[in-house]
């Protein structure tokens, strides 16, 4: 159990991903964001609601990090990617695949894993 203070809606969002109920925040004009958001940075709308996160994303770009910060020291080398889920894109760790085999456009599932170094939660993508 963590004793550090939680980061409000960010941790709620991770809980939801963990439970298979991932969501994103959408404004009336259909712009998608990740929480917490009080206003849409694109159009200024303050009428935001939750929408279910599409159940798969596509890798938009990726990197294999060999020189890590101390918080990821034992994780290195690891792959960090941005995956496009349609209305939103999300940054996460790609696992369950050899780093050499990660490619642009790969379809991935999203889940919550732990950092090997600190045990803290992290967004994880797994190629299908």
């Amino acid at each position: 159990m963590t004793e550090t203070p939680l980061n409000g809606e960010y941790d709620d969002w991770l809980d939801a991903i963990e439970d298979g109920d991932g969501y994103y925040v959408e404004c009336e004009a259909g712009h998608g964001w990740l929480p917490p958001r009080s206003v849409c940075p694109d159009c200024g709308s303050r009428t935001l609601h939750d929408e279910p996160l599409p159940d798969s994303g596509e890798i938009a770009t990726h990197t294999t990090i060999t020189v890590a910060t101390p918080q990821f020291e034992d994780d290195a080398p690891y792959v960090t990617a941005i995956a496009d889920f349609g209305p939103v894109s999300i940054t996460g760790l790609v696992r369950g695949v050899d780093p050499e085999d990660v490619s642009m456009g790969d379809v991935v599932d999203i889940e919550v894993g732990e950092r090997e170094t600190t045990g803290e939660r992290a967004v994880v993508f797994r190629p299908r």
Partner: protein
Amino acid sequence: MTDPRIAGAGVTQFGKHPERTGRDLFAEAGLEALDQSGVDPEDVEALYYGNFMGELAEHQGHQGPLMAEAIGIDAPATRLEAACASAGAAVREAVKTLRNGEAEVVVVGGAERMTNIGTAAATDALAIAADDLYEIRAGMTFPGAYALMARAYFDEFGGSHEDLAHVAVKNHEHALVNEHAQIQKEITVEDAMEAPTIAAPLGLYDSCPITDGAAAAVLTTEAYAEDNDLDAPVAISGTGQGGDNLALQDRPHLARTPAADKAAHEAYADAGIEADDVDVAEVHDCFTIAEVLAIESLGLFEPGEGIHAATEGTTTRHGELPVNLSGGLKAKGHPVGATGVAQLATIAWVLEGTHPRADAVPDASVGVAHNAGGTVASTTVHVLEVEE
């Protein structure tokens, strides 16, 4: 025109000075700038100072007054923080203050102490310029962030790591005569290609070093420079600043830097110039791909064309449009909070003809300085022009 004048500038040697405090570094640069300017320190009415990670590197916040004291001026002092664009933001505030008539003489500068905490802690400190919740917790580092942009760029426009190696080779060569530079070592494309990977596709030679250093400049109104018979031929004729979503994931495009487009557009309009008028540029090449993105945003190359500029020689000191004659952040070094003012000093010295690489552009009259923060969520662009 009442464009602010650069009356003097000073830059420390950029490099590893782990034992030197921030105040000591800034004193060296600031006093050199004051001495060069011929301005009476009692005339200085404000200090705008850039610093990014002072709390983390030397447990020192509230650095404005500390730095004013360090250079012996009794004036209001404010620290500005915009990640790696902190000093660029400080220049912009200084320009606005002088133009508004609120002061006749200001000092602008910045300093960063980084090597005293070691590479791992410095990497960690730099990472706080990204989105902590959505990027850092997903393992993103700064080399990693630019690697994400580089791969997206290759995917959209083509180009390769070898093209980026040419950027590194060029900037290393430019720095060979720069006594302020952290790295004065010629490298080959093969050296860059074979260097250890940091964040694929970027390797060691795609990344700027971790650097201690400071830079400062004394800026005055045109009237003050004339009344006091200062030798200040270079004016800051345009200023611009642009912003973007902090996190890469929230941007519609991963291979472009619209914050820099906006800053360039504003600065050029302010100066009454076009991109075609630019003779020389210092751009924020914290990573080789960043130079490519910068020269495209500045309108010097079309999107997708910047990747070929160094390979084809256009941006070398022998080319039509030299970029980073100082060696850039890549070879000169990148003491984060000082970089924007070091760029300003370089362009001023090149336009005056006193920089060791000024012979690359003997007829240059217009230069630009592009200073970017984070993954270019903050950018300042300044246009400098020299009196004919």
